[in-house]
C-alpha cells in the first residue's frame, strides 16, 4: 500500500464511517467529513516534501491472467494537483458544516463530498488506466449524487441526471479510448501505455481523440458543457468543489497526464484549440446575460476551463496547470462567497441582491478579490496564470507549438476578446451584488458564521499570492516536471510578457467600460432571462433534437417492436398451436364410420404415393 493509495483510500474510509455514524450524530459526521480531506492533505504534504521521488510509478500492469488495480504515480504534476484538491476540498468540507447546518441529509452529503475528493485523488495519482477509470467514473457518480442532493426538487433531479448523462456521453469516447490504449499497447500502466502510443501516431490520434471526448464532458467544453450551468441546482459548496477542485479539473488533468500522446496527435490538438475558442468566448457571452449569481459563475468556469484547454492545445501544459490551480483557488472562493451571499439573502437571483457591502464585509472583500482574479487583474493569481496562457498563444503565433500558426492567432484573438467580456460580466456581478441600494429580499442580511468565512479568507490567500510563483522563473514547471514519468523535455517560463499584458489591460478596460456604460440599461439587472443567449445559444435545444428526441423515439420503436413483433410472434406460436389443436379436434364427432373412412383413405393414399414415388 503506497502513500498515494492511502491518500485515496482514507477519504473513502472516512466517507463510509461518516455515513455509518452520521445517522447517530451530526457532529461525528462533521468530524469525519473534515478528517478525510485533512488526512489526505497531510499525506499530500508528506508526498510533497519527499521530492525527489525515487520511484514515481508503483504497481504492475495487466497480464498473465491478472488484472491488478492500484498502480500509482507520484510526480510533481500529481502532487501539485493533489495538494490543491485536498486543500480546496478540506475548505469546502469546513464551510459545509456551516452552510449545510439545516440539511437533514448532511451525513450522506459529507460522505459523498469525501468520496468525490477521493475519486479525484484517484484520478490524480492513477498509475494505471483502470484506477483512472474508477476515479473518473466515481467522480461522475458523486457529481450526480451531490447535484441531486436536494432531490425533492425537480430542478435538482433533472440537473443531476443531466450532469451524469452528458458526461457519460463523453465517457463513451473515454472508455473506448482507454480500450484502444490498452488493446493497442497491451498494458494498463498509464505511463507505459502513453509511451507506447506515442510511437504509433494512429493509435495516438485515435486514443487521444477518443479520450478527449471524455475530457470535453468532464471539463464542460463545447459541445458537452451543457450540464455545468444546470449543476447549480446543487448546494453552493458542491459547486465550489465541482468547479474548482474536482470534476472539471479532472479533464484537464488527464490530458496533462497523457500529454506526450496528445503532442503526438496534432490533429487532436487543433481540434482542442478550436473547441476551446468556441467555448471560451461563447460561455463568457452567455455569462453576461445571466440572472442568477451562481449561473454567471458557472458560465465563467466553462469559459475559464477553455483557457486551460487552449493552453494544452498549444503545447503549454504547465500554463494550463498553472491556470487550473489559480482558477481552482479563486473559483472555489467565488462559489463559497456566492454561497454565503445566497445563504444570507435566500435567493440566487442578482436582482434580489445589492448593497450588501456593509452587511457582509468579509464576504464582500473576499469575493471582490475573487472577481478581480477572475478578470485577471494584477497582481492576483488569475492575472499571472491567464497571462501564461496568452504567452503560450503568442508563442504559437510564432510557430513554436505543435499546431499551425493560424491556430495560435485564433486562440490569441479569442482569448483577448474573452478577457473583455469577462471583465464586463464580473463587474456587472460585483455591481449588482454589492453596490447600489439594498433590495427587499435582502433586508435582514448579516455576515456568515466563522465556519463559513474562515475558508473564504483561507482561499483568498493563494488567490492573492499564488500568482507570484510565476515570477520565480521556471519554478512551477520545474516542480511539476520533477521526476516526471513522461518528461516533456522543455521547461518553459510562465512569466508574463509585455505585449500580452498590454492587450489584456486594454481588453479589461473595454469590458469594464462597457459594463459601466450599460449600468443604466434596464436589462442590466434582469439580465436577458429566457433569451437565446441566456439559454446558452440554445445548445440544450440541439441536445433535445439530436440526442433526447431520437433516443425516446428509438425507445418507442423498441417497445412497439418488442410487443408487436417479438412477443406477438411468441404468443402467436402458442395460441396458434392451441388453435391448431382445436381445429384438429373438430373431426372427432364420435362417428366411427368417419374414423374408419379416414383410416382406409390413408392406406390408399399411402399406397398411391408410395407407388408413384417408387415409379419415379
Amino acid at each position, binding site marked *: 500500500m503506497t502513500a498515494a493509495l492511502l491518500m485515496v483510500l482514507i477519504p473513502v474510509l472516512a466517507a463510509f464511517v461518516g455515513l455509518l455514524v452520521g445517522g447517530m450524530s451530526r457532529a461525528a459526521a462533521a468530524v469525519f467529513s473534515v478528517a478525510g480531506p485533512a488526512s489526505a492533505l497531510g499525506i499530500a504534504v508528506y508526498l510533497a516534501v519527499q521530492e525527489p521521488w525515487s520511484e514515481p510509478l508503483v504497481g504492475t500492469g495487466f497480464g498473465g491472467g491478472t488484472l491488478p488495480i492500484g498502480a500509482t504515480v507520484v510526480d510533481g504534476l500529481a502532487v501539485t494537483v493533489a495538494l490543491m484538491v485536498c486543500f480546496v476540498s478540506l475548505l469546502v468540507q469546513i464551510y459545509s458544516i456551516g452552510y449545510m447546518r439545516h440539511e437533514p441529509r448532511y451525513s450522506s452529503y459529507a460522505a459523498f463530498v469525501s468520496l468525490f475528493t477521493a475519486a479525484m485523488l484517484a484520478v490524480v495519482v492513477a498509475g494505471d488506466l483502470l484506477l483512472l477509470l474508477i476515479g473518473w467514473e466515481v467522480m461522475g457518480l458523486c457529481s450526480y449524487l451531490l447535484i441531486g442532493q436536494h432531490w425533492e426538487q425537480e430542478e435538482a433531479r433533472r440537473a443531476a441526471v443531466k450532469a451524469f448523462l452528458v458526461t457519460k456521453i463523453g465517457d463513451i469516447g473515454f472508455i473506448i479510448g482507454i480500450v484502444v490504449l490498452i488493446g493497442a499497447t497491451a498494458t494498463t500502466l498509464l505511463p507505459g501505455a502513453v509511451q507506447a502510443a506515442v510511437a504509433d501516431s494512429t493509435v495516438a490520434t485515435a486514443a487521444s481523440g477518443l479520450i478527449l471526448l471524455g475530457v470535453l464532458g468532464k471539463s464542460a467544453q463545447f459541445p458537452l458543457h451543457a450540464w455545468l450551468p444546470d449543476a447549480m441546482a446543487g448546494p453552493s459548496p458542491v459547486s465550489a468543489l465541482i468547479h474548482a477542485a474536482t470534476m472539471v479539473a479532472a479533464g484537464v488533468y488527464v490530458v496533462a497526464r497523457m500529454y506526450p500522446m496528445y503532442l503526438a496527435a496534432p490533429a487532436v490538438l487543433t481540434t482542442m484549440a478550436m473547441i476551446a475558442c468556441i467555448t471560451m468566448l461563447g460561455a463568457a457571452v452567455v455569462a453576461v446575460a445571466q440572472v442568477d449569481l451562481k449561473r454567471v459563475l458557472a458560465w465563467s468556469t466553462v469559459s475559464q476551463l477553455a483557457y486551460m484547454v487552449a493552453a494544452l492545445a498549444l503545447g503549454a501544459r504547465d500554463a494550463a496547470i498553472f491556470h487550473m490551480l489559480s482558477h481552482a483557488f479563486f473559483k472555489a472562493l467565488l462559489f463559497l462567497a456566492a454561497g454565503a451571499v445566497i445563504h444570507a439573502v435566500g435567493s440566487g437571483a442578482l436582482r434580489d441582491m445589492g448593497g450588501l457591502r456593509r452587511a457582509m464585509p468579509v464576504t464582500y472583500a473576499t469575493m471582490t478579490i475573487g472577481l478581480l482574479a477572475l478578470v485577471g487583474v494584477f497582481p492576483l493569481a488569475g492575472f499571472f496564470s491567464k497571462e501564461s496562457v496568452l504567452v503560450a498563444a503568442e508563442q504559437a503565433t510564432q510557430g513554436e507549438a505543435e499546431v499551425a500558426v493560424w491556430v495560435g492567432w485564433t486562440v490569441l484573438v479569442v482569448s483577448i476578446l474573452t478577457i473583455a467580456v469577462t471583465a464586463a460580466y464580473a463587474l456587472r456581478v460585483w455591481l449588482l451584488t454589492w453596490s447600489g441600494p439594498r433590495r427587499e429580499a435582502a433586508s435582514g442580511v448579516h455576515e456568515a458564521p466563522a465556519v463559513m468565512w474562515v475558508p473564504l479568507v483561507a482561499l483568498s490567500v493563494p488567490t492573492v499570492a499564488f500568482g507570484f510563483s510565476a515570477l520565480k522563473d521556471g519554478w512551477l514547471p520545474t516542480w511539476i516536471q520533477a521526476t516526471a514519468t513522461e518528461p516533456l523535455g522543455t521547461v518553459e517560463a510562465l512569466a508574463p510578457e509585455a505585449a500580452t499584458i498590454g492587450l489584456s489591460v486594454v481588453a479589461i478596460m473595454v469590458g469594464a467600460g462597457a459594463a459601466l456604460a450599460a449600468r443604466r440599461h434596464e436589462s442590466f439587472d434582469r439580465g436577458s432571462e429566457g433569451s437565446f443567449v441566456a439559454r446558452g445559444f440554445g445548445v440544450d435545444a440541439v441536445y433535445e433534437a439530436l440526442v433526447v428526441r431520437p433516443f425516446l423515439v428509438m425507445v418507442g420503436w423498441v417497445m412497439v417492436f418488442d410487443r408487436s413483433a417479438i412477443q406477438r410472434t411468441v404468443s402467436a406460436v402458442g395460441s396458434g398451436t392451441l388453435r391448431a389443436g*382445436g381445429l384438429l379436434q373438430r373431426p372427432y*364427432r*364420435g*362417428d366411427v*364410420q368417419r374414423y374408419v373412412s379416414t383410416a*382406409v383413405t390413408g392406406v390408399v393414399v399411402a399406397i398411391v404415393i408410395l407407388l408413384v414415388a417408387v415409379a419415379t
Partner: protein
Amino acid sequence: MHLSLPLLLSVALFGIGVYGLLVRRNAILILMSVELMLNGVNISLVAFDVYWADVLHAGQSLAIFVITIAAAEIGLGLAILLLLYRVRSTIAIDEVTQLHEDAS
C-alpha cells in the same frame, strides 16, 4: 386357369365390402360388409395358395383361420350390438356418437 380372375374377384368383393362398410348405417349391415371384405381376402389367399402349390398350404390354412376369426368376430360383435341396442334402442352407427371430442 388365369390367376387374375380370382384376384380380380377378390378385389371386387373387397372393394364392395369397403363401400358397404362406409355407406351403411345399420351396424349389422356393416358387419356383413366386413364379411365381404374377408371373403375377398380368402379368395385371394386360396388363389395364391394354388398358384404357388404351397406345400405348407399357408394360404388355405389362413383362409380357414379367417373364416373362424370372422365367426368369432360376428359372435362377439352381435353381443356388443345387442348390448348397445338394449341401452340405446338403436344400432344406427351415426347415432352412436355420445363419446366424442367436446366442441370448443
